[in-house]
Each structure stands twice: as C-alpha cells, then as structure tokens.
C-alpha cells in the first residue's frame, strides 16, 4: 500500500504539470531571495575580508584617537588625531618598548577632478588623501607600490591609485584639481606623477598619495597625526606591546593589527548587513506569501481529489497514508523549489553585485562565493515552508470519509469562518489600539516599535478575518464590474464564492502592497515635509551645498561673498560634538552672517540675531537641558577645545534645525581650523541682480570645489527629496516582487477554480455565453480579487506609515504625515493590471470549455 500511495502522489504531480510548476514557482520566490541574500553577503564579506586581511599587516599596535566618530569612511573627524608629543615620546622610548618602526599616518577626505574637470565619484568607497610611505620604510613593504611614474615629491605632486586613475582617465603627467574636504583650504592644482597600487583597493576607492610633508600640511594642524602604526622588535608580541602602550597612553585607543583588521571587517559587515536586511525582507515576503500560495494550491488539490481520496480510503488506505501522500507531494515540491530557488538566488546575487559595482559603490570585485549555508538554508526553507503549508490541507484530506466517494458535488471546506473572524477582529482591535496609542504618544523609537508590533497584529488579523472582509470589500470595488452587466455580476459573485480562497489569493498583494504603502507613506512624508519646509522657511535665493555626503572646506564662504551680484551670504558650518554643563550638545552648527535674512525662524525669547560669541538654542534644548537665556555654557568638544558661550535667545525648533546655533567667533574657538567644514551657504542676490545670472556666476566660482551644488530654493528642495528616492527604489523592488507573486497566486487559484467550475462554465456556454464573455468573466473576477488585496494592503499600509511618521514627528521637527495618493492610485491600477494579466491564461482555458462538459459525467 505504501508504495502504491507513493505512486499515487508522484503520478498526481506528473499529471498536473502546470500546477506543479506554479507551486514550485511559489516556493522558489521565497527561497531564491534567501539564497540571493546569503550568497551576496557571503561573497561580499569574504571579498572584504580578503582585502582587510591585507590591511595593517605587520602592524603590532595602532594608536588612534578615541571618540573619533565614524572615522575612516569619509566621515568627519571629531578630533585632530595623535599629537606629535606622543610620537616623540614613542621615539624616545623606542628601545624600552621594543619598537621596530613607527609610522604616523596623515590622511583626510579629498575630492579630485577627472580629466574632464568634473569630480571623480567614489560611490560608497572612501576618497582620501594620504602620506606616501616608500615601501622600504613602511611596516608592511607590500601594502602599496608605485606601478608607473614615481613617488610624489613636491607640494603639488601626487600619485593616484590605478583603478581611480583609470576611471578618471588620468595618467602620469596630467594636471588636475583637488580639494581637501575639511579645513580652511582652497582648491589646488596637482600633477599626477605616479600610479600606485594598494592592497586595499575596492571598486570606487580613490587614494591620492602626497609627499609626507605635504600630507602633514594638508591633513593636520602641523602637530598631530591621524593615527600611528607601530611594529615591535622580534621577540616582543603584539599583545605585549599593546599592553605597554595602553599603560603609557591611556587616553588613546590602542589595538593590535589583528584587532584593526577585525574592526574593519566588523564595520564592513555592518554595512553589508543593510543589504542583507533588504534581501531578507524580500525573502520574508516571498516566503510568507509563498506559504499562502502553497496552502491554497494544496487546499484546492485536496478539494478536487476528495473523491479519489475517498476511494483510496474505501479500499483500505489509512488516514495517515492519505495525509502522508499529500505531504510527500509537498516534500517533492519543496525540494525542487529549494533547488531551483538556489540557482535563481545565485543569479540574483550576481546581478546585484554587477549592479552595485557598476554604480561604483565601493564593493570589491571578486567571484561569487557559494558556501554550504545558502544551499542548506534554501533546501530547508523550501521543504519546511512547503510542508507546513500543506499540513492543514493534508489533515483535511485525511478526514475525507470513504462515503464521500459516492457523494455528489464538491466538498469544499465550507466550514464556518466565524471563529477565525472573531479572533481576527480581536487581533485587529489590539493592533489598532497599539498603533493609535503609539501615534498619539510622545514619539521615538519605542512607539515606532509599537507601531511595528501593531502592524504585525494587523497582518495576523487580515489572515484570520480576510475571508470575512472579502465579501464587503469586493462588493465595494464591485461597482467596477457594473458596466459588464450580467458577466460582471457573475464575476463578482464568483470572486466571493470561496472567501477563504479569495482571501488567501489576495493576501500576497495585501502583504506586498502594505509594505509598499508603509515605505511610500514614510517617503512621501519626509520628502513632502522637507520640500514644504524648504519652500516656506528658506527665504534665500540660492543655496550652495556639498554633493552627496561630502564635506566642503570653509573657503567656499569667502569665494561666494566675492561673486558680483551676491547680497547677503550666510554660511553654516559643521560643529564638533560637544558637552556643556554635563549635557551633550550634538547637531549644533556654526553660523556666519545674518541668518534671519535668509531663513525664517521664530524666536521664543531673545533676539534672532546670533551674537558672534554667543548662541541660540531651540525650545527643545531649553526644555530638555533646562537652559535659559542669559546663562553661559562651558562647551567642550571631543577635540578637547572649549569655550564659554552665553545663550542669547531661544528659537522654535524647525525641520532644519533643533540644535544650537553658535556664533562664528565661538565656533572658531571651539573648532580647530583643520576640522572645520561647510554645511550649507545660503545667498540672497543683491538688489537688482537677476537670480539666474548670479546663480551662473556662483556656479562658476564654485566649480573648482568639485563636489559642490549651486541651486535655487526649488532645486534644493527637489534634490533633498531625491535622496529619499533611494528608499523608493526599494519600494518599487518590493512592489515588483509583490506583483509577481500575486500574478502567480492568482493564476494558480483561477486555473484551479476554472477546472473546478468546468461544468458550470459548460452550462453557461450551453445556454449561450460566448467565449469572449467567459473570458471577460474570468478577467473581471481576477481584477476584483486583485483590487481587494491591493485595497486592503494600501489601507493598512498607509495607516501604519502614517502612524510611524507620527512617532517621528516629535523627534524630527516639522516632519508630518503626507499620504502618497499618487503611489496609492498607481499601485491600485498596477494591481488591476496584474489581475488582468494573471487571468489571461485561465480565461483562455475557461473559454475553451465545451458546452457538453456541463452534461458529461467526467
């Protein structure tokens, strides 16, 4: 019997190839993203590990400043570095500490122009200037070498790494522009005298090597090094050296070379984690939705096979044998889906890698690494998900009683949906209460988490109450079917005929589009709020700001002021993180010029003028820190500088600023020249001057700064918003995935219900329904199901997105929820189109039904 049952299962699979393919596809969608994310991150981290294994080779100890912010990755330094006194101390104690070599590094972010004069973009990779250390002096003589030309010598000579040189079309002998991002410098001319090759090269990485003296001048204040690497004499271990150094210089971070490599790997893995999360989110959607698809398929298969199963039962098959035969089918499908998913996942990983390296995002180029993890994960996920999904249908199958072989008509699991609906409603109530509560709260991370939890409860509620909701919602969207007359009515009633099935089919759209709506609402709220704020708060005519996240030296301010036709100029400068009276003062900016003339802000107390020696604080800070006008705060930065700064006024926090606005003299005292950088420059054109003319002139004056944008207020608003568009790329990816899965699910459901309704369709054909009408009936049914799913997803998603934005509102001043109607409408239309597409094939099949099939006893 057992082998017979297996034969029945396998024959069943073979007999319904289309159904098999669709179900496998459902499994595949989930597993492919699991494999894709694992292969991609596996490949990337092994590639980065390969690179970082070559970093700090031979270094036994590295001294870096503490609290240096994000440091290496083009972030702004918070400190000047390691003072020369430490280096000379080290030199003095060389023998006592068993030091072999001491190698101070001088480095900082730079921008360099390509041959055509535009900035060389490094994507996500660092673009840095360094001091050239000849291999014979370096701790690791193999770390870098000059492959053509010679090492930089004069103050304007540089060596460029080979991949950057290629991308910039620069070669030995070329002269180009270079800007040191931080500090007070101006653009300079440099000549490429050599091409270097570094072990740490990744796609996009830009390394400009200067003679040591030049680097010291450009990247330090003359008495600090960025970091110091030390090698020990033979016989002394890294740990010993580090322990001794730690005792001597407790105020610095001291690590062994191995720790440096480990930190670098950890940092990059954190960065890769973002991709991992996105891909796993896709995998999650794929799997959850796939589960429903598989469940649906197996439910229908079982429903259709009731008679066959009953027959098997009546000839002696046990309940267990029946359910096992269904589960065996699931197992085969799960394995096949897992395997194919692995293949597709590897493709996804390869595609993603190609895409990211093409966009120069600083990823290393290497071949794909496929470890055992993705293979195992894919197969396990495939099998587990499929088996779980098939579990309930299998149980139902085993409950088929032998007499049902003789019974007329379909037994379709039409048991009551009352209980699940009630449980679903309870979940919904809890979900809504959580979300509403969080939205009404003071905001922050906790409430945002509550919104997420509420969202999960709502999803569960949809799963449970979906069948019950489907009737009213489809009645609601059913007006669309009205122009189709009777055909429309038939389609509408068919769509709610089996509410469980309709709900399970629509769920893929609901879940996918819910996420789309959440992201869309957050995106449009951020984008819209910022846009509105730019338009209403900024009164200046032109805005000069750094491209991407690059920094700009302070020199832009002076250069802008000297442009003809420029009126008021206000320069905002990045402050270092500081503490004052024991409270941390982050996100402060230095202000040079009359801010009120280019920017609208409301004073709560005091004058809007920012005194050069004083500062304005926001009402938020006043409240949080308990500071008052007239009070003088002793500010101390992480670089160790300090100043006494009086509070001269309190302003109302707004979208752009909720921190301290520090007067320029106080700023200069607090921020060493080397660490200053421009945040933004806002310009009012002089009376009588034309904005466009001045814009062109400023653009010309700023050209040499390379990574600078000169924009009107409107352009600035748009470009600011465009960074949010990256979020929207993920959104459209999710939308696409959700739609693809939805197509599969709907095709699956419709194809199977067409088979189930064969007789009825035959009868309709007999009494005169034309083929085109049959097709139309299936199309409309499909569109209605798709719209039901989409509508549910949109409503829930927008509510969650709205609530999330509400929880940001108190934290990000001026951000308020904006519903992305455009996206909502577009998505609903897309869902309808998807419904139509999915119905094409089942529709054609249905239309082929012969009228005789109504009467035939098949």
């Amino acid at each position, binding site marked *: 019997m057992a082998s017979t049952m297996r034969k029945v299962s396998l024959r069943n699979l073979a007999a319904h190839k289309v159904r098999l393919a669709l179900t496998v596809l459902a499994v595949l969608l989930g597993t492919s993203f699991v494999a894709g994310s694992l292969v991609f991150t596996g490949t990337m981290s092994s590639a980065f590990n390969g690179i970082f294994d070559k970093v700090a080779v031979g270094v036994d100890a590295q001294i870096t400043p503490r609290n240096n912010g994000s440091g290496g990755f083009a972030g702004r330094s918070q400190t000047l570095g390691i003072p020369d006194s430490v280096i000379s101390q080290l030199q003095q104690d060389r023998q006592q500490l068993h030091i072999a070599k001491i190698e101070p590094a001088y480095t900082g972010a730079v921008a360099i122009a390509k041959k055509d004069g535009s900035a060389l973009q490094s994507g996500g990779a660092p673009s840095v200037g360094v001091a050239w250390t000849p291999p014979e002096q370096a701790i690791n003589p193999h770390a870098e070498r000059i492959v053509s030309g010679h090492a930089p010598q004069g103050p304007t000579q540089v060596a460029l790494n080979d991949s950057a040189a290629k991308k910039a079309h620069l070669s030995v002998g070329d002269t180009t522009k270079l800007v040191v991002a931080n500090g007070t410098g101006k653009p300079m001319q440099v000549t490429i005298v050599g091409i270097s090759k570094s072990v740490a090269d990744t796609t996009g990485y830009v390394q400009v090597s200067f003679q040591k003296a030049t680097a010291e001048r450009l990247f330090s204040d003359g008495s600090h090094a960025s970091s110091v690497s030390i090698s020990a004499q033979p016989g002394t271990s890294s740990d010993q050296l580090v322990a001794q150094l730690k005792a001597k210089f407790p105020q610095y971070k001291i690590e062994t070379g191995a720790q440096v490599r480990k930190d670098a790997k950890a940092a990059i893995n954190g960065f890769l984690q973002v991709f991992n999360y996105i891909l796993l989110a896709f995998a999650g959607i794929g799997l959850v939705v796939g589960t429903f698809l598989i469940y649906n398929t197996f439910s229908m298969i079982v429903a259709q096979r009731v008679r066959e199963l009953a027959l098997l039962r009546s000839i002696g098959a046990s309940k267990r044998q029946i359910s096992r035969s269904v589960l065996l089918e699931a197992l085969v499908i799960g394995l096949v889906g897992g395997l194919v998913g692995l293949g597709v996942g590897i493709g996804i990983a390869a595609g993603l890698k190609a895409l990211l390296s093409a966009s120069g995002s600083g990823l290393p180029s290497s071949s794909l690494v496929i470890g055992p993890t993705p293979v195992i994960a894919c197969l396990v996920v495939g099998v587990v998900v499929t088996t779980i999904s098939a579990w309930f249908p299998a149980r139902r199958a085993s409950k088929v009683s032998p007499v049902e072989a003789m019974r007329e008509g379909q037994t379709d699991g039409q048991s009551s949906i009352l209980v699940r609906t009630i449980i679903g409603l309870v979940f919904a109530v809890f979900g809504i209460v959580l979300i509403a509560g969080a939205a009404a709260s003071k905001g922050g991370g906790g409430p945002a988490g509550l919104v997420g939890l509420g969202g999960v409860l709502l999803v569960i509620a949809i799963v449970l109450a979906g069948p019950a909701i489907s009737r009213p919602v489809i009645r609601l969207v059913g007006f669309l079917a009205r122009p189709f007359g009777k055909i429309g009515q038939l389609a509408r009633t068919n769509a709610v005929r089996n509410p469980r099935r309709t709900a399970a089919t629509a769920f893929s759209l609901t879940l996918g589009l819910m996420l789309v709506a959440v992201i869309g609402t957050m995106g449009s709220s951020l984008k819209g709020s910022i846009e509105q704020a730019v338009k209403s708060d900024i009164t200046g005519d032109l805005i000069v700001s750094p491209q991407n996240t690059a920094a700009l030296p302070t020199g832009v301010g002076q250069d802008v002021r000297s442009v003809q036709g420029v009126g008021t100029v206000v320069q905002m400068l990045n402050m270092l993180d500081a503490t004052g009276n024991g409270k941390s003062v982050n996100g402060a900016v230095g202000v040079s010029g009359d801010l009120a003339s280019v920017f609208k802000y409301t004073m709560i107390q005091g004058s809007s003028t920012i005194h050069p020696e004083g500062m304005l604080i926001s009402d938020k800070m006043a409240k949080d820190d308990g500071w008052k006008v007239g009070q003088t705060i002793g500010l101390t930065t992480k670089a160790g500088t300090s100043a006494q700064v009086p509070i001269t006024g309190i302003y109302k926090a707004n979208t752009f600023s909720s921190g301290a606005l520090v007067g320029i003299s106080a700023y200069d005292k607090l921020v060493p020249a080397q660490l200053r950088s421009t945040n933004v420059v806002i310009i009012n054109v002089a009376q009588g001057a034309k904005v466009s003319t001045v814009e062109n002139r400023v653009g010309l004056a700023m050209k040499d700064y390379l990574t600078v944008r000169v924009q009107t207020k409107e352009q600035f608003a748009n470009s600011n918003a465009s960074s949010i568009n990256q979020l929207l790329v993920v959104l459209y990816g999710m939308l696409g995935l959700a739609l693809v899965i939805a197509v599969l699910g709907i095709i699956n459901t419709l194809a199977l219900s067409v088979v189930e309704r064969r007789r009825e369709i035959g009868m309709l054909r*007999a009494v005169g329904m034309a083929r085109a009408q049959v097709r139309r009936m299936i199309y409309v049914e499909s569109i209605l199901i798709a719209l039901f799913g989409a509508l549910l997803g949109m409503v829930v998603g927008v509510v969650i997105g709205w609530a999330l934005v509400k929880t940001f509102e108190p934290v990000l001043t001026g951000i308020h929820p904006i519903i992305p109607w455009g996206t909502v409408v577009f998505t609903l239309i897309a869902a309808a189109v998807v419904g139509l597409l999915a119905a094409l094939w089942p529709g054609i099949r249905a239309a082929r039904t012969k009228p005789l099939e109504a*009467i035939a006893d098949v």
Partner: protein
Amino acid sequence: MSTPATAAPAAAGQQQPPAAAAYELVKTYGKGETTVHALRGVSVEFAAGEFTAIMGPSGSGKSTLMHCLAGLDTATSGAVQIGEIVLTRLSDKQMTRLRRDRVGFVFQAFNLVPTLTARENITLPLDIAGRKPDADWMQTVVGRLGLTDRLGHRPTELSGGQVQRVACARALVGRPQIIFGDEPTGNLDSRSSAEVLSILRTSVDDFGQTVVIVTHDPRAASYADRVIFLADGQIVNDQRGLSSDDIYEYMKHLDEHGPDGLQD
C-alpha cells in the same frame, strides 16, 4: 395574455417547416478498432408545437442525437437544422448565439449557477444576450411554474424539483424555437418528476412550445405526443399517442431482443 391561442396539432405540423430536423446524421467516436458508431444515419424532423420523447436503451445514442440537434456537439456527417438555420457550417460564435437565442435547455443536473438567485438564473440567457425579459411573459411563466415566491432563493435553497422547474422557466422565458431536455427528470422522485413534465406538457399545449426530451422512463415518455425509439444509433420506432404501458412493453421488448430482433 400573450399565449398563442392555437396549439398546433400533430397533423397541421406536417405542413409547417419543422422546428428542428436531422438528416442522415452520423456520429462516430474514436478510430480503427475502437470506433464507436453512436449515430448511424439518423433522419428525423420535429414539428413545431409538438412534444417528443426520445427513448432507447443506455448507449443507444439518445444523448448524442440531442447534443447534435441542440448545437452542443457537431456530427461526423449529415445535417442539422434549427428552424431555417443549417448548423453544419456555423462558427462557434454563431453556434453560441443560436443556442442563446433559439434553443432552451433543461439538463439532468448542473442546470443553475449556484451564485445566482432563481430569478437571475431564469433571465441568465437574456441577460447574457443583453436583452430585457418581457415582464408579462416572465410573470406568466413563473406563475405557471409556481415559482413566484421562490425567485429570490439560491439554487441550494431549492428542492430538486424546484431547481428543474427553474431550469424550465429559464428555457421558456426566452421563447426559444425549441427546448431540449436530456433526462430532465432523471434525478427527481416521481412527484417532482410529474410536476416538471406537466409543465413541459402545458408549455406545448398552452404556448405552442416545441419540446424534445431524452428519457428512459416510460411514464415520462407518456407525456409526449410522439415517442422515438433509438437502438444502436438508429431509429427503430417512431409513434404517436402511446400510453406508458405501451412504451413499457416496447422497451422491455427492445431490451430482450435487441434492435436486430425487432427488424425481423
């Protein structure tokens, strides 16, 4: 009342063109050794306003004949005519339209769309065609069939007899040229069966409707004006005015001796 006053008598029907007819109809299934000759050259005319029953042993070709006549299936050779329309060369679209506009059906099972109410099922062919049902006629039909207070019900809420009556109403309400029924009472008990048959009878007598049914129940056949006996794909007998006992006897005879025994 829009009831046609004259019920066409059998004799008068001979002069009028037939409501439907088959000429030298042949239908074979399969090829080679497994060939089944379902119809072996059947010629028959159905006069307008007459109630005909087709009888015969199981597998004799009754259903096949009816399907070919009704435009549900195509014959291997021969011609079928409904009214003045010859079905032989019709496209699927034209055939569908013909069924919709000129033919009524009552099947043994799966007559009604489960998601529609009785009323909606009755007007279904008209709705599909985009035509408005004639309200008076609808009321007459529904009233005669005793369905007036059942119109809002779904098929699952109706008894078997009521379902078949709704199917009859659907067939009648479009005033088709001819109504076909393939064992329309096959699933019913004798009482419901009698109800449905008398409805068909009445539609012939009072409305001049042409009705052809397939049955193997002599009592059902006795409601008809004319009974055609099929055996092995051929017409072996064609008589008018038979009682149910006559039919029963003849059927028994057919079963015992087979068609060949009859021809002797």
